[in-house]
C-alpha cells in the first residue's frame, strides 16, 4: 500500500541510520517504511487499537499522549522527531514543538493548512467552519482544536528562534510550489531544527 503523501516525503527525507520517534504514529505505517530502510523507529500513539495494530506489526510503540508523555523521553534521545497531522490536535502546539526539539535536534511537523483557498472561500461566502477532504469533521466534534496556517507556523518557529531547514507543500496529494503556498497548499511539512 502506498504511503500517505506527507508520510512518503518524510520517509524519503529521514537518513537511513537515524533514530526516530514518530509521535502520533497511528498503526505504524510510517514506522514500517522507515524500518525498511534501516531506521531505528519508535512510536507514540494515543489510540490503543492503533497501538495494538502497530505492535502486532512488530513495531515498538508506546500508548501515550503527545501533550503529556513526551516528557518521559530524555534529551536528545532521537535524531528526528516526527509529528504528522497531529499538531492541530494538541492542547499546546507551542509546547509540543519545544518537546520535539528537546528529544531530537530536528523534527518533521506536518499539518493541514487552514488558510487554503477553499477554506477561506467557505468561511468568506458560507460563514461556516469548512468540512473538507483533509478536515472531514464538523466543528463541534473535530479533534483539530488549533486551526493553524502555514503563515502561523512560520511565525511560531520564528518567534521561538527555531530554524526551518526545509518545507514541502502539498495540494491534492501533489507537491505544490512554494509560491503563494499560503493560499494553495492544502498541507505543509516543515523540517525544523534547534
Amino acid at each position, binding site marked *: 500500500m502506498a504511503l500517505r503523501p506527507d508520510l512518503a516525503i518524510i520517509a524519503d527525507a529521514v537518513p537511513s541510520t537515524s533514530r526516530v520517534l514518530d509521535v502520533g504514529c497511528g498503526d505504524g505505517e510510517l514506522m514500517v517504511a522507515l524500518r525498511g530502510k534501516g531506521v*531505528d523507529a519508535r512510536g507514540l500513539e494515543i489510540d490503543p487499537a492503533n497501538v*495494538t495494530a502497530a505492535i502486532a506489526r512488530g513495531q515498538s510503540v508506546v500508548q501515550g499522549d503527545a501533550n503529556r508523555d513526551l516528557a518521559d523521553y530524555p534529551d536528545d534521545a532521537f535524531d528526528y522527531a516526527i509529528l504528522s497531522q497531529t499538531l492541530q490536535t494538541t492542547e499546546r502546539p507551542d509546547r509540543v514543538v519545544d518537546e520535539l526539539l528537546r528529544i531530537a535536534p530536528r523534527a518533521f511537523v506536518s499539518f493541514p493548512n487552514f488558510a487554503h483557498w477553499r477554506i477561506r472561500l467557505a468561511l468568506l461566502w458560507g460563514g461556516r467552519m469548512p468540512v473538507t477532504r483533509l478536515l472531514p469533521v464538523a466543528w463541534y466534534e473535530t479533534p483539530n482544536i488549533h486551526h493553524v496556517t502555514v503563515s502561523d507556523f512560520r511565525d511560531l518557529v520564528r518567534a521561538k528562534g527555531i530554524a526551518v531547514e526545509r518545507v514541502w507543500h502539498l495540494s491534492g496529494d501533489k507537491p505544490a510550489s512554494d509560491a503563494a503556498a499560503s493560499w494553495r497548499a492544502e498541507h505543509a511539512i516543515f523540517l525544523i531544527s534547534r
Partner: protein
Amino acid sequence: MASLLHDIQHHSVTIAASLPLDSGQVLPAVTIAYQSYGALDADKSNAVLICHALTGDQYVASDHPATGKPGWWARMVGPGKPIDTDRFHVICANVLGSCMGTSGPASPDAATGAPLGMAFPVITIADMVRAQAMLLDHLGISRLHAVVGGSMGGMQALAWAATYPDRLASALVIASAARHSAQNIAFHEVGRQAIMADPDWQDGQYYGSARAPTKGLAIARMAAHITYLSEEGLTEKFGRRLQARDIKSFGFDADFQVESYLRHQGLAFTDRFDANAYLYITRAMDYFDLADPHDGRLAGAFANAKDVRFTLVSFDTDWLYPTSESRRVVQALQSVGAAASFVELSAPFGHDSFLLDVPALDRLVAGALGSGF
C-alpha cells in the same frame, strides 16, 4: 489433599550446584520441574521462557496432573498459536518455592528426609530467576528469544531483564509491576494470616499429619481471587443474585451466588496447591521492588537492558497491578533508551484478563514475539 498433591511425579532435573539466595542463605542443590514444547533449533536461538504466576505451574499447555484441566495458557501456547510451538522451543519451569516438583517447603531436608516446611529459606523473585537461569545452563541455552510472563510471571520477566540483560532478546510483561505496592502486600498478608491461623497449619509441619490447613488456604484464595476480578466482571457474572433459593436465609449460608462461587474457588484451590508454598511465594512477591537496589531509581535496574525489546500490556479493569505501574516501567525504559512498547487493553475481566479470551492480547503477543526474526 495436600498429600495427594505431593504424590504427583513431575518431569524435573536436580542440579547439584549451590544457589545463593538474596536472604544470604544458600540452597546446596536445586530441583527444577519443567515442561517444554516445540523443537529447539540447532543454534538454540528459538527458546522462549514462560514464567508462571503465583498459583500457576509448569503445565502451561499440558493438562494439569492434579485437576485434569487444560494448561493455564493453552489458548496462547501451541502449534499455530500466538506463542507458536511450531516455531519456538517453549520452556515453562515451576518456580522456586512452589509445590509442583521444584525445590520448596515440601522438599525433603537432605539430612533427615523430612519435609523442610518453614525451614526452607525465604526466597525472592530474583532467586526464582537465578534458578531458571541454572535450568537454562543445564539445557545448554545461553540466550533466550524471549521471556514472557503475566502477573508474577511479568515480575520474573522484568527481573530477567535486570539480572541477565545479555541473555535475552525480548521481554513480554503482561498485567504486572516492578514492585509490590502496600495494597498488594496487605492483601497477601490477609492470606498468610488465614493460613497461619488455621490450627491444622501446625507451624508448617503438617505434611506428615492427616491434617492440612485447607480452610486457611481456601480463605487466602478467596481473598486473593477477589483481587483478580473486577467489579464490572463480578456484577456481570453474579450481581446480587441469590444461590439456589428465592429468599434470603437471614443466616450465614452462601445466600449470594458470589459467595458460593468464592467458596468453591477457595476449596478447589486446596486440591492443587500447598499452603506453605503459598506463604513463600506471596512473601517473594511482597519483597519485589526492582528499584530498591538502585536507590529507588527504577531506570537503574534497566541500565544494561538497552538492547532488550520490551513489550508491556496492562488491562483497564486490573486494579491489582494497574496501568500506572506498567507506565512507571515504560518511563524507566524510555529514560534508558530501551525499545519499549506499551498498551493498555480494554477487557472486563480485571487482573485475570491475561489468562482469558482477549483477542487483542493474542495479536500483541504474536507480534511482539515475531519481530526481530
